[in-house]
């Protein structure tokens, strides 16, 4: 129910009372309301839930997580094989 998926904003239009975007999810493009993240620009990634963008994905935060995960993965590869 609370499913929200990331997509890339390819186009944003102001309708006066509302701001809408074309958002790409893999191969599919859908119309999405930007009412809750009005500062969104084309090129941004947003999380979309029931037709509404609910957040702009922060590239800096995502990068920090990747860095951390890469470290964990490397540490694991260096660790001796442990018996399960």
């Amino acid at each position, binding site marked *: *129910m*609370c499913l929200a998926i990331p997509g890339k904003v390819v186009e944003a239009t102001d309708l006066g009372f509302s701001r809408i975007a074309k958002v790409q999810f893999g191969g599919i493009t859908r119309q999405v*309301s930007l009412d*809750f993240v009005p500062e969104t620009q084309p090129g941004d990634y947003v999380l979309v839930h029931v*037709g509404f963008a609910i957040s702009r994905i922060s590239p800096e935060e995502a990068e920090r997580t990747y860095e951390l995960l890469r470290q964990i993965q490397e540490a694991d590869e260096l660790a001796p094989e442990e018996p399960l």
Partner: protein
Amino acid sequence: MKYLDEYRDADITRALAARIRARVTRPWVLMEICGGQTHTLMRYGLPDLLPPEVELVHGPGCPVCVAPLEFVDRAIEIASRPGVIFVSYGDMLRVPGSQSDLFRVRAAGGDVRMAYSPLEAVKLAQEYPTRQVVFFGIGFETTAPANAMAVWHAKRLGLTNFSMLVSHVLVPPAVRLLLGSPVNRVQGFIAPGHVCTIMGHREYQALSTEFHVPIVIGGFEPVDLLEAIAMLVDQLEDGRAQLENQYSRSVTREGNIPAQKLMEEVFEITDRKWRGIGMIPLSGHRFREEYAAYDAERIFGAQEIHVEEPAECISALVLQGLKKPVDCTAFGTRCTPEQPLGAPMVSSEGACAAYYAYRRHTAPEASA
């Protein structure tokens, strides 16, 4: 796809599980609150990767599951009326009421439609000015702003044939109920990342401080969940009890302010009954007086019905993490997703349905 595939990486998942195994020294009971997270855990078999010390119990975070039986009956009754176009998120269509479900209403000639977004219902109301369009507004804080926006647009457009049957529930009061229970076993929580995307840290910070319990806001992919579990285990092993945010690519401290504002503009907080749990004070939404014209309960007349849940169903215990689905004598036999007896079997995000779908049928002795 970007921001998705990386978080399903099998090597990172394995590495995180190894880190948890290396860290854990004692048994810990953790709860993921949200049904979407339960679904991911089961789908990717994550509990099997964890050391035996880490026990995961599943929370009440499935709005479809906790919508009370009488509320589903109410929806069915409205949907059956001539002239009504009843619009619902797909999840809700096959949820059984006490007698029927929305699919059967449709089979019997009712105009029941499935929508991806509540805005589709607003559009229908514009297209069919002589019909009453009723939207089934269920959901947590993640969905409530979208439903509020649909109402706001209906008002802006001056629509008089659009209304909403609202059954929103709020997460923190349910967590407070669990934590306050004398039989609570949960020592650390994964908070729902999309609810927190809207609501921010504040309420979960308060719960963590009040009950001195570690809470980590977590995402929905396998890597997100294992990282959140690793963060909880770190806290518990260190003797810390803080609010931490694993899902920082989406969740900010203050949350989504425009969404919070609109939700508060249209709805106010009220007591709500949760299927399988009972009445929880101040745990849901109802329309504010200014928006009463869009309240389907008022338009179609309120109705007090009381329906008993099947006695065999232990969903109250399952939804509070006190029992596992496989502890239920009806699991997989008298209760299946096709013929659900209780709340957590009706939606794919309910714990019983997630166990069933991913074949965790390790019921001790199914008394068929």
